[in-house]
C-alpha cells in the first residue's frame, strides 16, 4: 500500500498539535516532574498559540463562507438558468446589503434593531413554528412503519417529556415532578455521559490519526 505524503503530513501535524495543546492545558502546577517538563518546554505557549490560530482560522473560515455565499448568489443572479433562481439570489444579496448598510448608516442602531425585531426574529420564529408542525407530524407517525420495541420506547420517552411539561397544575404536579426527576433527568444524564465519552473517543481517534477528515 502506498502511503500518500499529504495524508502522512497532515496526520502528523494534527497529532503533534493536539498533543501539545493537551499537555499545555492539562498539566497543572502540582504534578512534579511532569510539571517541570512542561514548564521547561514551551508547551503552554504553543498551546495558546495553537488556540489563537484555531480561533483565527475559524473566523477566516466563516468569512470565506460568507464571501463564497455572496459569490455564488451573484453568479446565479447573473447566470441563473431560471427566473426563480435569480430572484432567490437577488433576495439574498439585497438582504445582505440592506443589513450592512443599515448598520453602517445608522450609528444609533435603531434601524438595525428594527431589522432584527421586525424581520430576523419573526422569520426565525416562523421557521421554528414550522418545525413544530413537522415534528408533531413525525411523532404521530413514529409507529407507522412498523411497531418495534425501539420505536415504542421512543414514543414513550417523547410523551414523558411532553407530559411533564404540561402546565396543568396540581392534579398532575406530583406525577410530573416524578417524571421530570426520574426518567427525564436520568435520560438526560445518560446523554451527557454519552456526549462526554464520545468526545473522548473522537479526540483519541484524531490524536492517533485514525480519523482523518482533514486530509482527504
Amino acid at each position, binding site marked *: 500500500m502506498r502511503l500518500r505524503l499529504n495524508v502522512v503530513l497532515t496526520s502528523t501535524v494534527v497529532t503533534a498539535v493536539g498533543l501539545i495543546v493537551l499537555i499545555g492545558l492539562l498539566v497543572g502546577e502540582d504534578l512534579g516532574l511532569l510539571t517541570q517538563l512542561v514548564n521547561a518546554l514551551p508547551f503552554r505557549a504553543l498551546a495558546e498559540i495553537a488556540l489563537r490560530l484555531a480561533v483565527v482560522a475559524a473566523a477566516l473560515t466563516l468569512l470565506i463562507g460568507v464571501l463564497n455565499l455572496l459569490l455564488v448568489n451573484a453568479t446565479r443572479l447573473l447566470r441563473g438558468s431560471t427566473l426563480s433562481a435569480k430572484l432567490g439570489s437577488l433576495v439574498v444579496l439585497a438582504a445582505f446589503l440592506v443589513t450592512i448598510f443599515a448598520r453602517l448608516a445608522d450609528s444609533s442602531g435603531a434601524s438595525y*434593531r428594527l431589522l432584527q425585531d421586525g424581520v430576523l426574529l419573526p422569520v426565525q420564529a416562523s421557521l421554528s413554528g414550522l418545525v413544530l*408542525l413537522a415534528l*408533531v407530524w413525525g411523532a404521530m407517525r413514529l409507529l407507522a412503519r412498523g411497531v418495534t420495541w425501539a420505536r415504542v420506547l421512543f414514543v414513550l420517552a417523547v410523551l414523558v417529556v*411532553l407530559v411533564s411539561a404540561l402546565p396543568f397544575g396540581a392534579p398532575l404536579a406530583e406525577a410530573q415532578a416524578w417524571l421530570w426527576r426520574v426518567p427525564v433527568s436520568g435520560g*438526560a444524564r445518560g446523554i451527557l455521559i454519552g456526549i462526554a465519552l464520545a468526545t473522548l473517543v473522537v479526540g483519541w481517534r484524531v490524536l492517533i490519526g485514525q480519523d482523518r477528515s482533514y486530509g482527504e
Partner: protein
Amino acid sequence: MSDWGNKPPQDGDDDLEFNWLSEGDDSQPAASAGDDLVFDWHSDTEDTGASATGGGDDFAFDWGALTDDAPATADIEDHRFDWHGGSVHGDRDRDTGIGQLQNVDRLFESMERKIQAAEDADFGLDTGELLDWMRDVDADAPVEPSSALPSWLMDDVAESAPASQPEPQQEDWVARLGNFSVQEVDEDGNGVPDWLDRVGSFEDPLAGMTEADFALTQEEKDALFGDFLSEEARSTSAQPSLADEFDFDSLAEFGESAPAAESDDLAQMFDADEFDFDSLAEFGESAPAAKSDDDLSDLLAALDDAPTAESEVDLDSLFAELDDAPAPAQADLADLFDVSDIAELVEDSVPSDELPPPELPDWLREAAQAAGTGASVSAIIRQKKDRSLDELDDRLLELREIGLNLPIDEAVDKGALQAIVPDIRQTLAPATFLTVVDAPAIAEMRLSPEQAQRADLLKRIVDGTAAAQEARRRRTLPPLERMLVAILLLATLIVPFLLRLDAVAPDMPTAFAADSPAARAYDTLETLPEGALVLVGFAYEASSALELEPLARQVLTHLAQRDARLVAVSTSPFGVLRAETLLAETQPSGRYSVAKVLTGEALGLRDLTLNAAAATMTNSRGGRAELMLPSLDSAQVIVLFADSIDTVRLWMEQVAPNTRTPFVFATTYGALPLSAPYAASVPQVRGQLVGYTDALTYRNVLNPPSTPEPSADAPTSTPLLPTATNTPRPTNTPRPTATPVPPTVVPADSTGVTALPSTATDTPLPSATASRTPVPLTATNTPPPSVTATEQGSPVPQVQVAVVIANGTVNVRENPSSDAGSPVIGTLNSGQIVRVLGTNDAGDWVNVLLPNNRAGWIARFLVRIEERPLTDFVPSAPKRQAASDRVLVGTVLVEGPVEVLDVPQPSGAVLATLNLGDTVRVLLVQGDWASVILPDNRVGWVETFVLEIREVPLSTLFALQTQQAGAPPTNTPVPATADASARVLTGLVIVEGEVEALDVPQPSGAVIATIRGGDLLRVLNVRGDWASVILPDNRIGWVETFVLEVREMPLSEFQTTQQLTSAPPTATHTPTPIPPTATHTSSLTTVEATETIIAAIAEAAADTPATPPAPRLLDARYTSQTLGQTLAVVLIVLGNLFYLARAWIRRGR
C-alpha cells in the same frame, strides 16, 4: 464502431489482450472481462506492438506473433492482417517489443516462411484450430492486463491501466450481455463460459480448415505449441495449412529489398531489417500448393483498408472468398513453421493429457503464473471444442444473421473489424432499453425477464420516462391527513387570540411553586444586595429569541429593581446585539456594560475565566467598557440565557469550575431536559427558569395581573417597566431609602472598575422602575422609632448589623453550632448586611435576622459588626400569593394598644400598635414571637400570647382586614362615649388647587384621591416628608407634608371644622383604586380587589388614556401555548395508538 485496424492505442487503454470485441481498440480498458472471454487472443497481436499503421496483423502473423511474444508482430505493419482487430498500435513502443525479439528470432524466421506460404493460399482456418493455437500462446495470461501479459506489456499496462477498472462503455456489448462472463455461466466448471463453449467456429471463413492444414509433426507441435493445440482441435475437420494460405515465399521479398509489398500496409508490417524474409521462403518451398497470390492479395487488400466506424464490409463475401479458396493440401505444420524455438516461448497452462508442458521463457511463465485463477480468453478458447453452427448461442446466431444481412460498403477498410463484420458496432451494441429503432438492421435486444425488470428499475431511478414525470405532476397536494393535523394545530394556536377560552385554559400562574428551581432562581435574585455586580451571559440564537427574551426581560427588570450592575457577555455577535437591545430597554439607570464578543466559543469562555478583566475591558463598540468584571468571583451571581444544552454545558465546564459565583439559568424548553440535571445536582446552580411559562409567572410576581400595564410583550417597548403615568406595583415591599448613607456611591479604582458598594443593604431601595426619575433620596417611608405623632422628631436609632465579609456564600444555621444538630436554614452572600439580634455566650456565633424574617446563627468570624440606622432594615413582606392560599393570621386578643416591635426582643423599637380585634397576617412564629405584616406593609414582631393565630384563606384575611379598615375611622362622628376633648393631629391643605393623595408615601404611589386646598384632614402620623391622613371617604392615604399645615386641635373642633370645609373627594383618576387596606397590603391579591380594580378602570376610562389590553394578550398567548402543547401530546398519543392497533390487527390476520 470498433476500430480494428486503425485506431491507435491510447495510453491506459491497454486491454491488450482481449478487447477486440469491445471495439477492438485499446480505448476500452481491460475492465470488460467479457472482452476477454473469446476474442482477446488476437488482441494480443495488437498489444504486442503491432503495426504502426494499425493495420493489425494477419491472424497468421498474430499467432506467430503470439508465439514470439509479439515484438516481431510489431514489425508486421500490414494492418490488413489485423483483422481481428484493434491492433492499431502504431504508437506502441515497438522498440520495447523488438527488444524482446532476441529470444524469438529463430522462431520468427520460421514464421516468416509460413506467412509467405499462407499468403499465397486461400486459407480457411478452422477457427477452432487457430483459436486453439492462439489461445495456447497466452494460455495462462489472465484477464487482468496487469497480470496477463508479458513483462514488457505488463509494465505498460501497470503504468497506464487505470487503478480501477472502469465501467464498460456503451458499446461494450460483451460487458452488457448480462451474465456473459466466465464466472457466471460456467456450469461445467471448466472455466469457460457455457456460451463460449457453445461458440463454434465461424464456419464461413474457416470452414473446412482442419489441423491438418497446419500439419506439424507431433514433435514439432509439442515443441512449438505444447498445450496450444488440443487433441480435439487436431482431430477436427481438415483445415487448410498455413502454408497453403500464405505465400511465405513472397515475404522473402521484403527481406531482400526495401519493403515493396503489394500493399503498403504489408510493407509496413514487415521491417526488412528485422525479418529474415528469406527464411519465409522455406515455407513456400515446403508448403503445399498455395493459392494464387491474387486471392490472398485480395483478401489482404480487403483487410488492409483502414476501417472506419461506418464502414461496412460484406462479411459473407469476404468469407466466401475464403470458402472458395481451394482446400489446401494437407500441410504439415512442421513444414510451415520451424517450431523448434517456439517451444521455448510458449507455455500451455491448460493441462493436456497428450502434450507435455512446454518449455517457456521466464517472462511468459511468470505471466502465466501471475494469471492466477483468472481465466484468459485464450485459455478458454483453447478449451473450446469445435462446435457446429447449431450449437452457437442464440445471441451469436442472431449476430451472425444480422451481420450477414448487412449491406456492404465498398469503401470500408477491409482490414478493420468493421470490414470483416459489417456494422459491428451497431451489431454489437448493448441492449437498448428504448423502443427506438435506429436503423433497419438495428433492433432491440431481447432481454430476459430479469433484465427487463432491472431495466425498468433503472428507468424509474433515472426518471427519464414520461410516466415518472406524470406521477410527479400528480403529486401536487400533500396527504390529506397531514393537512388536517396542520390545520388543527394552527387553529389551536390562533383561536385563543380570537376568542376567550377561559373555560379550557388553566389559570395563569401567579407565583412560582414552592421550592421549585424557578422559585429558587427568583429568590437568588431577590436577595441580591444593592448594587451587586452581575455577569449576564447571552447565549442564544435568533430562532429562540422570541421564546427566551420575554423571560430575559423579566429577569433583567428584576435585576434593575435590585439596582444591580450588569456586565453582559456573549460568544456570538447576535448575543451581543440582543444584549444591547434588552439592556437598553430594561436598565434605565444605565448601569450596565456589554463586552465585546468572546470569540471561539469555548475558547472565549476560557479567556473569560482566565482573565475576566481583559475579556470585559472592551465594550461591543470597541471602546472602553463602562463596567468591567475584575474576576468571576467578584460577581454576585451569573445569569445565563441559553437556548441549547451545548451552551449550558460549555459554561458548566469552562466557567463554573473556576469560580464560586452562583449560577441562575434561564433557558428555553429545548435546553431544559439536559440542563435540568445541572440545576438539580450542582450546588452552584441556584435555580432555573424555563421558557414562556416562567416568564409569565415572573411577570406576575413582579407585576400582579391586577395592575393593567401597557402592551406587555411588544418587543420594541418596555412593557414590564411601569412608568410614572401608570400604577406602579414594583414590589410588595416598602422601600426605605438609606437616607444617611448614599446608596450607590462607589469609588472607582485606577482601572476604571467600580468596586462593590460598601453600603449594600439587604433592603431594597425605592423602586427605580417606578418612574423614570430617581426617587428622592430624602423621602423615606420608614417611620422614626416611635410612630406616634407625639414622638415625632426623635433621633433615628442606630442598630447593630452584620456585614458578611467572607467570600462567596455563608451558611446560616438554626443553632449556634456547626454540627449535625444545627441544620442550615439559609445562606447569605458576601457583602450582605443583616440585623444582629444578639450573640451566644461564647461570642463566637451571631444571631441575625435573615431577609425572610427568620432568625439564625452565623459564625462570628464570617461577619463584621457595625451600626446602622434602623431605617435601613425594615424587612420586606414575602412574595405575593394566590387568593386561595391559606395563610396564618393573628387576631389581637388583649385590650389596649399592642406594640409591634422591629425585632423579636422586648428591647426592640416600636413600629406600630395594634388594638383589640385587629387581624394581621402572621409570617412565622419563632418562639414567643410572631412576625406579622402591618397594615403599612412593614413587618414587625409581636409576642404570641397576645394573638390568636389560625390559618385562613388569603381572601378571608383580606375580607377581615377590609372589614376592619371599614370601621369608622377616628374622623367620623365618634360615639357619645368618646372624649370629644381629646386632641388629634390635623392637617390643613394650604396649597391651592388639587392635591393628590397616594397610597404609599412615595411620589410613585398610586393616586387614590384628590383633595383641595382648604380641606382639613385628620393626620394619623407623619413620616418624614409624608403624612398619613384619613380621607373624607374614610380611606387612608399619604400626602406630602409641605402641602399641609399640621397642628393639633380638639377632636370636636376638628369634626366641626371638617364638616364645614371638607368636600367629598373627587372621582379618582387612578386606574387602580385600592381598597382601604389593600393600599397597605399590596402583597395581597384577592378576587374582591381585582373586581374593584376592574370597576375602577371602567369608571375612569373616560379620563384616562386607554391602555392596551395587555392581560388579554397575555392570557391569549398563555392559552395558545398551553392548548398547543396539549394538542401535540394528544395527537402523538392518538396517532401512535392507531398505528399500533393497525399493526396488531394485521398481525392477527
